[in-house]
């Protein structure tokens, strides 16, 4: 039986984030969003609504896209996490980041990390998505600035560039 009772309050929780091991001390129901921003200094994870409605706090956890504002940190123990900071390599932007820049997919930028991660997740499963598939994959992400057209175009452009079409 691996039942574990944790008292006092703070527990030690470890996970991998962008390929690096991180260990934090946190209350089990603290939001993964807050731990990533405050303890791991990954401020690319943005808080919009804090209620699961906007997707700006999206990250990849064990290969699936989740809202980090709804994930209790205890469920991130041993998880493999990717945030926007994990996409670029050294001095080169990720193809999605470059496409968002080139196509005007980012304006104020609050939604952008979540959008790009949602798109990254889509392209990793489906390298040549249709317009409809892009819309569906980004349906959990709100943008108040762009009206979505440039965002969809950025994702389509990134797909073209990375499949060489």
């Amino acid at each position, binding site marked *: *039986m*691996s*039942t*574990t*009772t*944790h*008292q006092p*309050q703070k527990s030690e929780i470890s996970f991998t984030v962008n390929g690096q091991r991180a260990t934090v001390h946190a*209350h*089990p*129901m603290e*939001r993964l969003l807050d731990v990533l921003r405050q303890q791991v200094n990954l401020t690319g994870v943005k808080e919009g609504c804090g*209620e*699961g*409605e*906007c*997707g700006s706090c*999206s990250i990849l956890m064990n290969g*699936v*896209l*989740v*809202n980090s504002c*709804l*994930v*209790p940190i*205890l*469920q991130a123990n041993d998880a493999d996490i990717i945030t926007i900071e994990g996409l670029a390599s050294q001095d080169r932007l990720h193809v999605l980041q470059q496409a968002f820049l080139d196509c005007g997919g980012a304006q104020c930028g609050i939604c952008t990390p979540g959008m790009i991660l*949602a798109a990254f997740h889509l392209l990793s499963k489906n390298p040549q998505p249709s317009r409809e598939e892009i819309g*569906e*994959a980004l*349906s*959990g992400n*709100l943008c108040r600035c762009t009206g979505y057209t440039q965002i969809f175009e950025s994702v389509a452009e990134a797909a073209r560039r990375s499949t060489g079409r």
Partner: protein
Amino acid sequence: MRAFDYVSPTSTRQAANLLSSTWGNTEILAGGTDLLALMKEDVVTPKRLVNIKEIADLRGVKSDSSGLRIGSLTTLAEVAEDAGVREKYPAFAEAVREAASPQIRNMATVGGNLCQRPRCWYFRNGLGLLPKDESGKELVEEGDNRYHAILGNDGPARFVSPSTIVPVLIAYGAKVRLEGPKGKRELPLEKFYVIPKTDRDREHDLLPNEIVTEVVIPAANGWKVAHYEIRQKAAFDWPLAVAAVALKMDGSSVQAARVVLGHVAPTPWPSPQAEAALKGQPANEDSAKKAADAALANAKPLSQNAYKVQLARVAVKRAILKAAGGAA
């Protein structure tokens, strides 16, 4: 958030023994998409949290002679992608795909969806399921009740049952299986939802130390099922009305029907009136309209939600026509 401890049992039996027999002391944590918000706002303040995510037996979709068995820890995304669900229960797969957002479906579990707490804003502000002010005045009746119940609302409960996947599960004849310290039980899913009468009641027929282990959907043999929901926007808000319909046809006439409404009452709302109106009739525009009228005949809107009556009527009518037009 208050102080609490947490445990991560690896079997349902252990989990049941770690839960208190009194509501308020302990809470079950599954995907956390609802519970985290409830705890952050101190709407629920357990002394112990029982994280059930490490109970491997509660995961996955299986099929056997009782039908399709969906473990309570299966996520909504896993259900939506399951080949057996998509092939044999397409209306359920559709309802799951329409629920919430991709991110939430990746975390949210089926058991958590069935047990999620009402979205009533009085409840979410810590005023309880049956909110009253100090003088005993009922807050929903007097206050902002735009999204509250139009059926089953003669009091004191006026919230609406939140799940959008439960009505279609009921239309398929689904059952829920529970396990507690005294053993297991099974009940028709519609019986799992109850209208609380006092502040001590819960909206589920669930003991504080019981765990939802699985949902069983019997084979849909011969039933044509459809799900229809009306939302203001496509995503991120909650539906204003949901209807699920199952029809068993005898030639061109309806031999038997199940009609279940959602987001209109404190429980999912089966409508025997609509079912009777359909029986023996052809499934067409005219009979669908009559059944929809019958489903809402007893509706009693509150001060600000009369618009929901017509929306619910439209949802029922369209679900009937959709079921009549499609396969199971």
